């Protein structure tokens, strides 16, 4: 783990952007902010139109690990054709693509099986394309100093509750980044923007997106703990780096009213949205009006337009 000197690697100039199904086809305004920020930082993102579902480390992997491994290998093969590393804007996609690559590189027998399948569709996996979560690129490759150079409107006075989400840093032996239980890179990136990241008791608490599929009461209970703790810390916003967490933490606010008559109204912002605002984007430009929990009024209080 890198703590002392954060910028440890030079910036590869070009990445294949792995947008992921949820951002691409449900909350595309997140993609807008992501592209905006990377362009400002001078990092070229290349679109490969053949990228399919990563596939989801929860839904598809739980159904069939074999299907998950094979489809993941196809996406990696596509990036290899482009000769580029992948940057992912989703905790789930980055976990899957990192884990599939590692599993195939470590297990020649499995690799052989998958390779024969890929050959049937005219593709091939070698394992040459590295996979990064966008937070890793920002923290390790770009670094706070570079980020600060692009800021035109610092987020001074803004109190942020950071929710890194589970699959960003766990299982550590698959994703190999940050600290598994107390991740700090997302926090450092938000702090570089001038915001104050508040401590709150339930930062580690899962958003419950996984269990909500089967046991909604359990998911609501987890959210209640999370929101209560964020309210206690008096945060203005919740910041996330995963689209599943984003949706769960937005939609969950309405569920609290129904389940517990609990009032929760804390806008959820993606880290790339916070960055785009600090880099000078207007709220309209990055589609903030499409949020379910409207952030515009609170952002106006902080002087954003």
């Amino acid at each position, binding site marked *: 783990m890198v703590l002392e000197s954060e910028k440890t690697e030079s910036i590869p100039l070009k990445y294949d952007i792995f947008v992921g199904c949820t951002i691409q086809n449900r909350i595309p305004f997140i993609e807008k902010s992501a592209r905006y920020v990377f362009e400002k930082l001078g990092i070229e993102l290349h*679109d490969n139109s*053949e990228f399919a579902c990563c596939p989801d480390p929860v839904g598809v992997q739980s159904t069939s690990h*074999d299907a998950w491994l094979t*489809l993941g290998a196809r996406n990696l093969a596509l990036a290899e054709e482009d000769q580029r590393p992948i940057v992912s804007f989703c905790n789930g996609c980055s976990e899957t693509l990192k884990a599939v690559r590692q599993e195939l590189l470590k297990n020649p027998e499995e690799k052989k099986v998958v390779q024969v*399948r890929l050959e049937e569709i005219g593709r091939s996996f070698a394992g040459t394309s590295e996979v990064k979560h966008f937070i890793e690129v920002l923290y390790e490759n770009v670094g706070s100093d570079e980020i600060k150079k692009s800021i035109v409107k610092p987020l001074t006075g803004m109190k942020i509750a950071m929710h890194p989400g589970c699959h960003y840093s*766990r299982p550590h032996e698959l994703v190999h980044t940050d600290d598994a239980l107390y991740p700090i890179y997302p926090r450092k990136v938000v702090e570089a923007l001038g915001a104050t990241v508040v401590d709150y008791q339930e930062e580690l608490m899962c958003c419950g997106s996984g269990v909500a599929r089967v*046991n909604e009461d*359990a998911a609501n209970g*987890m959210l209640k703990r999370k929101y209560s703790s964020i309210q206690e810390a008096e945060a203005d916003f919740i910041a996330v780096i995963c689209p599943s967490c984003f949706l769960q933490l937005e939609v969950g606010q309405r569920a609290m009213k129904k389940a517990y008559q609990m009032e929760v109204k804390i806008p959820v912002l993606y880290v790339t949205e916070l960055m785009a605002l600090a880099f000078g984007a207007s709220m309209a430009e990055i589609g903030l009006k499409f949020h379910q929990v409207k952030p515009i009024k609170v952002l106006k209080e902080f002087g954003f337009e």
Partner: protein
Amino acid sequence: MEKNIHSNPAAFLREEFTDSELGVSLSVCYNCSTCSTSCPVALETRGKFNPRSIIQLANFGYEERLIKDLSPNTWECSMCEVCQEVCPQHVDLHEVFITIKNAAAELGNIPKSYSSETNQVYLHGKAVPLQPAIAKRRAQLGLPISPEVSISEIQHLMNFTPAKAILDQANAKSSSQEESA
């Protein structure tokens, strides 16, 4: 190259839990319960779901109970992966749970929320397919068109895996339920 569903998923699971690397990982559990005390779902269900009990049942040959009766129900795991990180014995709980769920799915014991997502991937290549309203929103935002992937490639690959038979079973089950309703 082709893997179909196992004729006896419980027997397959027994093999996985004894004669493999995973079995070695399982066998070192000393029942300390650190996993269960860190599990958010255990907290919310007052221990009705808890990882330690699943590991114990896996260790002592209760495969049928795990995948047939779903008691406890491994699908209730939120996959937050905290148990995996805190286990002092480094038991691979992540892989144990995936293996159990895969075997349950082969038996037809898969929640609809899971099979329908995998089915979307089979049909569209994406877990979340594009809707016209989102295509319009993307254009408004000046984003590139959300591309359609080569479905034939996706289906060809998935047909090599147990996913195809699992989805066929799940789809047959849901259409027979619709008929009886």
